[in-house]
């Protein structure tokens, strides 16, 4: 199993991508998709990617929906800020967050989540101190943002990639 399919997620993703590109699937394209899913990861072994293990798939799906919801909400927030619809004072600034996570998969996923939600921007991560520097377009509630990153994203990611 492990010699034939060293990276099951990569294989499944490649097969699915090939099928989507060649919709509607014919028997020929299905065979080709399976072959690609089988061969390309074996070639990828030359790059020695670290194997990824997902512990709790259910939690990962829930995190996906949390992120999609947050993305929608912060899109509306940032659009309101740009169009000048927001009342009251807005301060913008940097905030530093101490992270407990050290897994590189978790950190790269966290960076994708934070950068893909408008309003938060991952600026720098220091692996020695484990602190993350983030820029907020609206930092009036920076303590709330620290809590939000740690509770909503970091804890599920740590459990998924534990």
């Amino acid at each position, binding site marked *: 199993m492990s010699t034939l399919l060293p990276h099951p997620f990569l294989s499944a993703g490649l097969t699915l991508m090939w099928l989507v590109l060649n919709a509607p699937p014919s028997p020929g394209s299905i065979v080709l998709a399976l072959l690609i899913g089988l061969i390309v990861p074996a070639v990828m072994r030359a790059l020695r990617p670290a194997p990824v293990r997902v512990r709790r798939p259910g939690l990962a799906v829930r995190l996906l929906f949390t992120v999609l919801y947050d993305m929608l909400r912060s899109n509306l927030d*940032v659009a309101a800020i*740009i169009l000048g619809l927001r009342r009251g004072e807005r301060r913008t600034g*940097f905030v530093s967050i101490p992270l407990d996570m050290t897994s590189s998969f978790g950190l790269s996923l966290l960076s994708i989540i934070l*950068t893909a939600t408008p309003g938060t921007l991952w600026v720098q991560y220091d692996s020695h101190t484990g602190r993350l520097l983030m820029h907020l377009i609206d930092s009036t509630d920076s303590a709330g943002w620290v809590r939000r990153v740690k509770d909503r994203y970091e804890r599920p990611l740590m459990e998924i990639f534990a």
Partner: protein
Amino acid sequence: MNGPDLPAWAAWIVVVLALGGAGFSLTGALGLIRLKTFYERVHAPTLGATLGAFLILAGSMLLLSLVEGHIVLRDALIGLFITLTTPVTMLLLARAAAHRDRTEKNPGAPPEP
């Protein structure tokens, strides 16, 4: 132009999706002009890259599925591609800007983490 042939309800849904997506993209580009500092401006194009692109691609998938008579999911690959690449470019750009501001000791330079 020889446009596609669709039922009226589908045409309205597609148009609403496309206009919504274009609206978010335009708002993002407007933010590029209106916001004052560079670090604020980096947030603006993300608007077009997330919800703007998502709405337009959803409209495109719906339209092409109805026109071609089977489900077309190709455009989802563009969405996946944008989702994976935008964070990388924004991250690199933010780091480069932070690096430059720190070496030049600008007043708006980010603090050390």
